[in-house]
C-alpha cells in the first residue's frame, strides 16, 4: 500500500511537470488530478487502518 500511495503521488508529480510553470490544468487534467487525489486519500486511509490497528 505504501508503494501505491507513492505511485499515485508520482503520477501527480508528472502532472505538475506537464503543466509547469503555471500548473493551470485543462478539463482532462482536472479530472485526472481529482481521481488521483481521491485514490491517494483512500490509500492513506488504508495505511492508517493497517498500520495503526
Amino acid at each position, binding site marked *: 500500500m505504501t*508503494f501505491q500511495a*507513492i*505511485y499515485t503521488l*508520482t*503520477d501527480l*508529480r*508528472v502532472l*505538475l*511537470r*506537464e503543466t*509547469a*510553470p*503555471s500548473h493551470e490544468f485543462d478539463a482532462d487534467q482536472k479530472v485526472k488530478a481529482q481521481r488521483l487525489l481521491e485514490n491517494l486519500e483512500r490509500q492513506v486511509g488504508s495505511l492508517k487502518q493497517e498500520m495503526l490497528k
Partner: protein
Amino acid sequence: MRCGNGIEARQVDELCINIDPIQAGGRLTADAMKAVVAYGDGYSVCDNCRKPNRLDYITKPPIAEFHKDVAAWLNMDAVRTVPGARRGFQAVAQTYVNKGDPVLLTSLSHYTEFLAVEESGGIAREIPANDQKLVTPDAAAEKIEAVKRELGRVPVLAFIDHVDYQYGNMHDVTGIAKVAHQYDIPVAYNGAYTVGILPVDGKAMGVDFVIGSGHKSMAAPAPSGILAATAEREKEVFRTTAIVGDVTQRKFGIKEPEMMGCTLMGVTLVGMMASFPHVKERVKHFDRELANHKIVMDALLSVEGTKCLSEYPRKHTMTRIDTMGSFDKPAETHKKRGYYLSSALEERGITGVIPGATKVWKFNTYGMTTKQAEHVARSFVEIARENGLAVKE
C-alpha cells in the same frame, strides 16, 4: 524541503520548463520514477540471479527480455547495458585500438570518444566538418586517405556521432559508414542524442555498433546507456573471460572483460527498462517534437539579430544559437549584465540557459507540450521587447 543531510529535494522540472540542452531526453517517465522507488537498494535486480550469473541472463525482473527487445528495436544483434555511452565507447576502443593505432573521429566528436581512444593508446584523427558544420562521406574518405599517407595504414576504428553535441546537426552516418567499410574500418555510431529520441536502425545505416545514452536520451537515471553490436562484432566486443588464477585455478565463467562482469545493477537498469515502452513509442512521434521546436525557434529568430548556428531547418530539438546581435546587446547596460536573460526567463518559469549566457548558447525543447513551447516562445519575444530589441511581426 530536504531529502537528506544538506540535500535539497530537486524540483526543477516540477516548477519550471527546463530547456537545458543535455537534460531534456533523460527526464524520467512516471514508470521510471516508480521503478526507482522500488529498486533503490544496491543490488536490487540481483535477487533472482541464477547460473550462469550474468546480468543479461536475469529473467525476473525481465532483464534478459529487455536486452533482446532493445537489440531488435535498434535492428542490431546483441545489446549490453553500460554505465553511460562513454563506457560503450570505452569498451569498443579497448577491443580494437592498440598503442599507436589511428582512430577516426570528427571535429564535432564528444570528448569522451577522445578519452576512450587515449586510454587505449590510440591516436585521434578528426574528419573536419564543412562550413555548414556537417561531416560528410567525402570528407571521411579524404581523411582516411590522409591518415594512410601520414601513417602508412588506415584507422582501426571510426566513431561517428549521428547528431553532434555542439550544434545538434545530423550527419550522414550511412554514407560515412559505407566509406569506412570500403577500408574495412569498423564504425561505432554515437547515438547519445538519437537513441531514444528518434528512430534508429543500425543495420540500415550499416554500422557495427550503436551506442546510446540512457540518461541523455532514454528517460533513464544516470549513468546508463546501451552498447549494441552486429553478430560479427558481438563476438569481439562481448568476448568472454579466459583468465585463470595461478594459485586457485579460478575461472570466471561467461563474464565479459569489456563489461567488467555485470554493469547496471539497480535503479539505472530498471529505470531504463521501465521507460523503454514509452521510449519506443515516443521515437515514432519525433515530428511533434520538431513542430514544438519550430514554435520556439521561430520566436527566437523573430528577434532581430538572432542567428541559428545549427543547420536550418532543424532536424533535431537541440540547437545552438548566436544572440550577440540581439539578447547580448542589453547586457552591456543592464544592471544585471548578462544575467538579465536567465533571470527574466526564471521569472517566467523557464530554466536551463546557462546564467550569464547572452552570446552563444544551446537549448533543447524535447519533451515539451505545445502549450509549454508556446509559453517559451512568447517569453523570449516579451523579454526582447522589454529590453528594447526589435521583433519582426
